């Protein structure tokens, strides 16, 4: 009888953990669904990539961190950034027409899925650590977290060219 209770308890705890994990994942996805983030240049990276700081907003700081990479890749593709200090020059988004996101919805949904192909084009520049000034509580319930990442813009551009989403410089010639 006792053994039965133990087994039931273990199964129940396992189920709750799984449900909780799924709920957190969905929550994180909801937070980033509207692509609410800010992107700024963090300096001159090596050739073919951009070093950016992406500020993500979330009620849970952990979600903001985990979604930072996705936001950074999205920002390079659709938003770009203004110039700034450290020799940064303005960077125009790789896709100049915002309607392309909707037009190629299938591709971008799969690209930005959890564990999707976007991860091949971004890496953390600070081993995941966040500077104290980059963890801001902007209201009672919301955090703004900045993480510095390196986005492989040249490779990303080539991918979009091969998918026919953007034109290459020599297309038509």
């Amino acid at each position: 009888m006792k053994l039965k209770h133990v087994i039931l308890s273990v199964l129940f705890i396992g189920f709750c953990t799984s449900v909780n994990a799924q709920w957190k994942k969905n929550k994180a996805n909801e937070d980033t669904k509207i692509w609410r983030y800010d992107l700024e240049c963090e300096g001159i990276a090596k050739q073919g990539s951009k070093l950016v700081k992406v500020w993500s907003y979330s009620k849970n700081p952990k979600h903001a961190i985990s979604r930072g990479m996705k936001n950074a890749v999205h920002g390079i593709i659709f938003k770009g950034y203004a110039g700034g200090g450290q020799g940064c020059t303005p960077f125009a988004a790789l896709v100049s027409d915002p309607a392309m996101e909707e037009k190629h919805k299938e591709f971008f949904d799969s690209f930005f899925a959890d564990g999707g192909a976007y991860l091949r084009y971004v890496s953390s520049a600070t081993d995941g650590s966040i500077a104290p000034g980059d963890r801001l509580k902007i209201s009672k319930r919301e955090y703004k977290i900045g993480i510095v990442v390196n986005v492989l813009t040249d490779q990303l551009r080539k991918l979009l060219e091969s998918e026919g989403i953007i034109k290459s410089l020599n297309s038509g010639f």
Partner: protein
Amino acid sequence: MKIHNLVTLIICSLICFSSFSQAKKPTLMVVPSDVWCNQNGYMMEFDNQGSTIRIPDYKRAFQENAEVLQVISQINGMMAERGFPLKNMESAIKTMESNAVEDALRSSKDSGAAVDESPIDAIKKAAKADIIIQLTWTVNKTGPKKSINFNLQGLDAYTDKQVATATGTGAPSFSAETPVLLSEAVISHMDNFTLSLQNHFDDMFENGREIIVRIQKWDDWDGDLETEYDGEELTYIIEDWMADNTVKGRFSTTDATESMMLFEQVRIPLYNDKGRAIDARRFVRELSKYLNDAPFSIPNKLVMKGLGRATIILGSK
């Protein structure tokens, strides 16, 4: 066997179609600007009937300045990566020199005749490209701090318009060497430069290639551009032809006299009726034929300069 032939025919047609459907690709070349050459002492001076003429000495700049090679090499590499390899000016100068030596020494085996070269041919022997990427940088120094002011200008060699640009000042540094700062400047500006170049190409594909057309006349021709045909002056006849054959009728008559006409901002289609890529020469060739045929019957000579400039000289070949 029949299927085999059919497949071969289809493949050949596809190859032909794909080769015809490509627009003529402009050549690009990075050239140090006059300002940079002057600031760094790479100028030549000539006495032209009392007035001193100063022109850039590119050959000496390439032989003596390692920084200019580094910057050009990096720009060439980044453009090649975008599928747009550039002409290398240093190599173009060397090729030109070796061709000149070869031409001077070459003679016919049978008659001993030399290679024919008109004075115009001699003038046309220059390192050239359709789009010149003019490069300027200056090193700013404030105490121990250094920064680079960088300027890239893409200039259309025929219309003289600036078609692409990227300019700005890099972050100041106490410790970085100039080549490192230059490398950073190139990396940070090339994306903006290629973006503006892309915008220029997009405009070209949408509105046609922009060219310059000149009409002149030989001084021994008994007619002029004010001669009337069926009650219409030749200048207006040529203007009407331009309006009918340019993309959306776009062109500007900049100058028109009895002996010359100058058309600027002439937008020509990238392909002709057969789907073949055309340039200024091919486009103006049609005007040349139009004037040569009845009722005008004006013999004329067609002269071209690269992809974007063509001149018709009326009166004879």
